[in-house]
């Protein structure tokens, strides 16, 4: 039974299962490069510029808007020419507060996703390729975080240990990396049984070398998709924490702005609308780009008879 199975797997993997460092002529000629497929999708053409716009605004925006904490203006002004997003209950320019808030939200989202990807690739790759103790440990840790929801653990940890941006990032990364590691693990397990890994072993390469040059590069497509989704999830969880009052009070993120907007929902709709809209658009952009990336990387998945 095992021999036939392996034969099928090896046979199926041959068209794409070549060494990633040296793609064969046929592969390049047979289909368009993945990034072209990805960039050519209509959804990418809308949401990639949108995401870049948000990143750009939060990087260079602070040079163009006033101070987010200057209180001289009349309080609770609705949006107008002078204050495009109005003013808050203390008369602060809300546009400036939203721009500065975006810095924190995006910083947390991207940092957490990168941390999760790094930890996930290392731990998941080792666990999937070598199996054994690492594998059991990873499965148990992933189970642990399924039983104790990340939001709750983050709330408890932040409440007990105090909360600044660094602590929030670390806590979110700790609660979120297992889902990324599980994907790498599954891929590494699959790839470690493929023909080119066996050839690499037969050629005398060591485990770490094979893991680094064959297994991980080939496991990356689903990992990239998961990472882009992690950006969205991290921003959502951070905004939830900040909405509940956990976060750096001196540097409010979008979620923290929503926390203070709650009390003024009746008088000032703009306070609740704009930060939430920003979170929504960024997370939507990240999720749709992740979906597009997934379609471009796995063109065969989802084809139905």
């Amino acid at each position, binding site marked *: 039974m095992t021999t036939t199975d392996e034969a099928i797997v090896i046979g199926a993997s041959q068209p794409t299962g070549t060494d990633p460092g040296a793609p064969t002529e046929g592969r390049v000629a047979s289909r368009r490069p993945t990034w072209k497929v990805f960039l050519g999708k209509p959804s990418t053409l809308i949401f990639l510029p949108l995401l870049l716009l948000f990143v750009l605004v939060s990087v260079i925006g602070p040079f163009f808007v006033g101070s987010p904490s200057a209180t001289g203006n009349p309080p609770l002004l609705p949006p107008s020419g002078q204050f495009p997003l109005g003013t808050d209950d203390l008369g602060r320019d809300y546009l400036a507060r939203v721009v500065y808030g975006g810095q924190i939200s995006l910083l947390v989202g991207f940092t957490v996703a990168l941390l999760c990807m790094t930890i996930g690739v290392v731990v998941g790759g080792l666990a999937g390729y070598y199996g054994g103790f690492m594998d059991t440990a990873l499965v148990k840790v992933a189970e642990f975080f399924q039983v104790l929801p990340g*939001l709750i653990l983050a709330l408890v940890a932040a409440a007990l240990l105090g909360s600044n941006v660094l602590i929030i990032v670390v806590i979110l990364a700790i609660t979120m990396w297992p889902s990324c590691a599980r994907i790498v693990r599954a891929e590494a397990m699959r790839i470690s049984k493929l023909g080119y890994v066996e050839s690499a072993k037969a050629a005398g390469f060591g485990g770490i070398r094979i893991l680094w040059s064959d297994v991980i590069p080939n496991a990356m497509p689903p990992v990239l998709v998961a990472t882009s989704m992690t950006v969205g999830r991290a921003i959502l969880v951070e905004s939830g924490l900040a909405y509940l009052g956990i976060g750096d009070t001196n540097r409010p993120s979008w979620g923290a702005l*929503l926390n203070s907007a709650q009390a003024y929902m009746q008088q000032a709709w703009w306070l609740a609308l704009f930060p939430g809209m920003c979170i929504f658009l960024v997370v939507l952009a990240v999720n749709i780009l992740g979906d597009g990336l997934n379609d471009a990387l796995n063109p065969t998945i989802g*084809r139905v008879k």
Partner: protein
Amino acid sequence: MRAIVSRYGRLLVSSLLLFVAVITVLFVLLELAPGNPIQSLVGDVPISPAFEAQITAAYGLDKPLWERYFIYLGNVFTGNLGFSFGTNEPVLELILGRAGNTLALAVPSFVISTTLGIVLGSIAARTRRRWLDSTISGVAVGLFSVPNFWLGMMLIMVFSLTLGWLPTQGKAPYGQEGIALQYMVLPIITMATSELAYKTRIMRASMIESLSQDFIDTARSKGVSSQRVLWRHAMPNALLPMVTISGYSLGFILAGSVLVERVFGWPGMGLLFIDAIGRQDNQVVLGVVIVLTVTIIIVNILTDVVYGIVDPRLRSQLVRRSTTTRKIEVPA
């Protein structure tokens, strides 16, 4: 039979170990927390060394770390979650008093999101690449990306503050006992949306997978109507991943209730949790987490049991193992 017993035995043991792990992490977090427990108990006043020693002994703080850990573990397992700093009530009673309110939102949200998710996901998979699928999938991605609590705020602003159709806060008119139905509408919508979006996505993918199997071709070539193929042949298969997803989703709904209850001022476990964090009432904070964890673990066990019952492969595997006729693989 022996296979079934050993399978569920292993499940129980690993669940128990998970629970101990959760308590251990909570205990470590509590130990790492900055600040002196005695000072936070007494307040910000100078106290004499003798009084300090008295409190230390009374609360068992003079015992070594590992001994306190086992005492804590023992207390949790006997249902003693300590007393609230604020009100001095037993934590377990405090939590169980609120649990009903949380379930009143969580259970309807769970049922609605699961059934609607299955229906919408199947429709999207069936009408793949046409406008109905694009609409359903697009809306699902959208709802999946909305911060849940912000959706609740927007619903309040539209339906309560502007249109005046539904109440904004609480679970019943002021001074009235119980839960009034119109107070449940917005919180349930808020809670159900992101789960609904997630389940629709999963169901769509699972249904597409199921529709591409060979037995669907067989059914079609036999002349089975396409409605019957969808509901009778593809559906049972596509539902299998949904069993697991639904099990996990109850955990997400309960965790998310923290946010939703804060938006709507709904006096459930989530609001108790947030208030306790604000007051630094650590016993209540940990108590809620423990009750939540136990609930999720029990739900996970039930999910596994249900999965074992509905998955014909697993079922036959168990039967096959117990009758020791394991190898009936097709010869190569």
